[in-house]
Structure formats: C-alpha cells, structure tokens
C-alpha cells in the first residue's frame, strides 16, 4: 500500500486516499480533516504557512499509527499533512481509519489526530488580515482544533 504517513506540498485529495483504504473486511471508515479557518482567537486569518521537518515527522507519524493499531482493533490507517502556504478552506491534514466496527474507527482516528497535533515537528504560522503574522505555539493552540 501507499506510504502510511506523507508530508505533501501539493493539495490533499481525500477521495483518492479514502479509496486507497478500501478493504472487504472493513465495515467502518472514519475520516478527519483539518481545514484552514478564516479566524483564530478573534483574529481574521488570511492564510497559513506550515513548516515541517519531514524526516522526523514521518517517523513519529508512523509511530503514532502503530500505537493506534496496538490500542484499537482497526484494520488500517493513513495520515497526510501539508507543508507550505495554504489558503482558507484548504485541507491541512487528513487522517483516515478503517475498521470492522465503528468504535475502533472513531477512536483510532481521534487518537491519531490528537497525537499528530502535539507530537509531529510541524509549525504553523498565521498570516492575519492586519498584516501581522505569528507562529502558533502550544500554549495558545492546545485547547483548540
């Protein structure tokens, strides 16, 4: 199958990725996508910039998928994260999980995106309508999507 964890400079195609997870034993598919919002903490956001240290992001991402497979009876999972400049509405991250039953699909998907957001060496710079920009740090982003 395709690489389980991918850092992509090109737009994410969730439909193609989902199709890659097709499995006759799968009864449940859960997909999560993080989209670029037009606001954060009261600031109007124009676009986002992601910096990724790919070698470690991919390795840590695979570790997270392995942990999810250990914890939940899932069949397969995959994760793609963008890097570079993203416009409002673009998909910044996609996680897809297939399992026989929906409990595992939902829980593994949630486990993976939660871990991806706090463990992968990825940094997000917000460009605001005011002309300012700023790196989103953990203290500010921990409680949010």
């Amino acid at each position, binding site marked *: 199958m395709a690489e389980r964890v991918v850092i992509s400079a090109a737009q994410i195609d969730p439909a193609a990725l989902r199709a890659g997870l097709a499995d006759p034993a799968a009864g449940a598919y859960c997909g999560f996508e993080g989209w670029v919002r037009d606001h954060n903490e009261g600031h109007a956001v124009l676009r986002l910039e*992601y*910096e990724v*240290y790919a070698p470690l992001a991919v390795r*840590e991402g695979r570790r997270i998928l392995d942990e999810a497979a250990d914890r939940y009876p899932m069949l397969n999972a995959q994760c793609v994260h963008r890097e570079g400049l993203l416009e409002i509405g673009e998909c910044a*991250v996609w996680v897809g999980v297939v399992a026989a039953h929906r409990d595992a699909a939902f829980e593994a998907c949630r486990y993976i*995106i939660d871990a991806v957001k706090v463990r992968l060496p990825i940094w997000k710079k917000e460009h605001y309508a005011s002309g300012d920009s700023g790196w989103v*740090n*953990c203290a500010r982003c921990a409680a949010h999507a």
Partner: protein
Amino acid sequence: MTASATDRTVTGRTPKTIRVRYFAMFREHAGTASESLALEADTARDVFLATRHRHGSPEPAGHCKVAINDEMADWDAPVEDGDEVLLFPPVAGG
C-alpha cells in the same frame, strides 16, 4: 589561561563541536537554519540554554522538543562531540 585550563580539568568540561539546527520561530530568531558551535554541554538541555540568546525564545524547554542526530530525545540526553542537535519550538500541526 592557567586558571582556565585548571577549571576545565576540574569540571571535566571541554568544548564539544555541536551542529545546532533551528526550526520555525527559532530559525527566524537565529537568522540561520543551522550553525556549528563549540559548547561546554553535557546534555540537550545545556545546548538549548546555551543557544537561548540565539534562538531568542523565552519558551521553557518543557514547551519545546529536541532531537539528537534525527532521533527525538529527552532534554537530559547526553550530547557528544560532533552531534547534531535539532531545536524545535512549540509544535502546532493540523
């Protein structure tokens, strides 16, 4: 000079050549993506603190992450002469 040489012998600290890589906010503050420094450092934390004026961040180490030679590491992990230390400011994926 003599005092300095004696100090080094007493503490057991001789400078190590450490390649330090900065990311995101740290890279912007350092004005460079990487540099080689001669540091009296035993651990990853020592490298973080020694370069704090360069990466310019008040963030405590606990909010940041570190890797040594492309492996995620603890702040207490030892650093050796010739190691590459990667300093990660607070991450924000997704």
